[in-house]
């Protein structure tokens, strides 16, 4: 082998290196830096070791928002994934209605987060909002600014409205990749509708659904604008999920150390869950 060594090649990698540094490594390191120091203002910092981490991990406030976060994520996944799959299965496979359905499905994804929050805020208002008014008209007392249950209901239904489409589009793409011969063979083999789903459609959708779950999981951990605009974490702290709590700690109370420690814990958790889930799903692939 005759290799030419040319160290100038390193310059080629430089742009990528800079890009990654500025948008990932440096911000992350800043946060790591804050998480181990204490400040009393004036840019004076003291090294504190793992004090903030210990404090966060032992605080009831963090436990509560973490619990709320898992409740939120679990609920929306439990609704959006099956619902998305059902809608994808019901969508036409060919003809005039395919593009129409696809555009309709894509619409919610195009609405900016803060607009979604504002829209649902107005929509769910008990006195003038269409949804809030209608629910009350049915004789159910509904007021998301005062009742935790109503607030949760609204936050979840908003997320379902906004993001189920993503699951639908991914699942639909998976379904479309199944050749007709599979459905024909299933008819020859007298497979029931359920068996077709279980043994043909679901296995073919497995990869895209894995991606859908990961995306929705990570997104729901990051989600901030929509619930913030809708409920601001209230009433009280009842819909304060992690990101809202984090912003409260960092900017509202200027507890940089606590907030930084929280975001690192929260980052590692997301990473861990995604990794475990992904390896579990992909293990079957290469056995």
């Amino acid at each position, binding site marked *: 082998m005759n290799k030419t060594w040319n160290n100038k090649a390193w310059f080629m990698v430089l742009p990528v290196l800079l890009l990654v540094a500025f948008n990932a490594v440096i911000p992350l390191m800043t946060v790591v830096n804050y998480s181990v120091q204490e400040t009393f203002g004036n840019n004076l910092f003291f090294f504190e070791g793992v004090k903030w981490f210990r404090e966060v991990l032992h605080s009831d406030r963090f436990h509560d928002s973490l619990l709320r976060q898992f409740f939120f994520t679990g609920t929306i996944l439990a609704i959006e994934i099956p619902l998305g799959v059902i809608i994808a299965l019901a969508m036409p496979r060919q003809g005039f209605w395919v593009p129409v359905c696809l555009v309709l499905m894509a619409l919610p994804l195009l609405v900016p987060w803060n607009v979604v929050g504002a829209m649902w805020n107005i929509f769910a208002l008990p006195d003038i909002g269409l949804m809030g008014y209608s629910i009350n008209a049915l004789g159910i007392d509904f007021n998301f600014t005062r009742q935790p249950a109503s607030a949760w209901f609204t936050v979840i239904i908003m997320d379902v409205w906004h993001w189920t489409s993503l699951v639908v589009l991914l699942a639909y793409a998976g379904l479309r990749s199944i*050749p007709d*011969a*599979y459905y*024909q*063979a299933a*008819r*020859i*083999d*007298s*497979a*029931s509708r359920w*068996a077709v789903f279980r*043994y*043909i459609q679901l*296995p*073919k959708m497995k990869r895209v659904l894995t991606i859908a779950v990961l995306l929705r999981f990570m997104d729901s951990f990051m989600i901030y604008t929509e619930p913030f605009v809708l409920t601001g974490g209230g009433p009280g702290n009842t819909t304060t999920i992690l990101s809202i709590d984090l912003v409260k700690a960092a900017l509202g109370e200027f507890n940089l150390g606590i907030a930084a420690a929280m975001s690192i814990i929260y980052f590692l958790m997301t990473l861990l869950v995604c990794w475990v889930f992904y390896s579990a799903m992909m293990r079957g692939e290469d*056995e």
Partner: protein
Amino acid sequence: MARIEFDRIRHAYMADPKTEADYALKELSMTWEDGGAYALLGPSGCGKTTLLNIISGLLHPSGGSIRFDGKDVTTLSTEARNIAQVFQFPVIYDTMTVRENLAFPLKNRGVARDEISRRVDETLRIIDLEEKADRRARRLTADEKQKISLGRGLVRSDVNAILFDEPLTVIDPHMKWQLRSKLKELHQRFAFTMIYVTHDQTEALTFADKVVVMYEGEVVQTGTPDELFRKPKHTFVGYFIGSPGMNVLPCKVSGKTASIGGNKVRLPVGAPKDAKSLEVGIRPEFITLTGGRTGIPVSINRVEDIGRFRIVHADLAGKEIAATLPEGSEIPAEPRAVFDPANVNLYADSWLVEAKG
């Protein structure tokens, strides 16, 4: 097992077909005998798959009716018809093991458990996958996957018919030969009605008692391999069967004599009055090249040696013909082509003119 009858079946994929050409399968009435081994032969796009799908009920014909043993099944679903069909490309259930794949059609039909395991074991032996029976089907090679597809057809021994749609396309030649003889053996043992689609004529001719040749949505001839060889009903059959195919030469006809570029050839029949085009068909095997006085003068273009005999490509009145030359015989200096009178056929508008009575 069943006798399958087509009564004026036709099919068009488009919503309102207007001309004859809009039909992927043109009007067809025929009978597939119970226990028959049929090969369905024809070029790609001629409607073979369409025909099979009509039999299995994956497709409902635009017109006509279909009967199994006299019972009308035109509107019955695939499930109710009890037909096995094997497709060109392997279809397997990824998440199941090989054994589960084979058991699947039986389970769906509510076959008793020990009966299932007996039949699955037997099928595993036939397709030679006993060792991999408990492996996930996904990890197997294309050959093995196609064997599973075949197996899911064979495991149902009580079907009305088994339809094979070019099932050996993805299988390597050695295995092809093995599987083909397996299928033949199975057919002899169980005598199921079998329709085997292929566009490989050797496969068709070795396999079947009856060969059905299709061309542009039409069944142009059904017959034994020998009939297809000696009396092709359509010039297409002449071209398609045999290698090289039949020579087809435009001609003029008066009485029972054809004139090809001024050279006279005796015909077994006269031409129908309303024919637009007339052609003489003669197979290379029935042309002798002599140096004598009789016959039509030809000039040799090239000679191909294919082992058992040689093929001479020659020019006859401006048209290229092929003739076979038995081993050991020489090409005469001034060659003339002599047609075997018993095997000269006349075609009017591409269809064979048959002697009356």
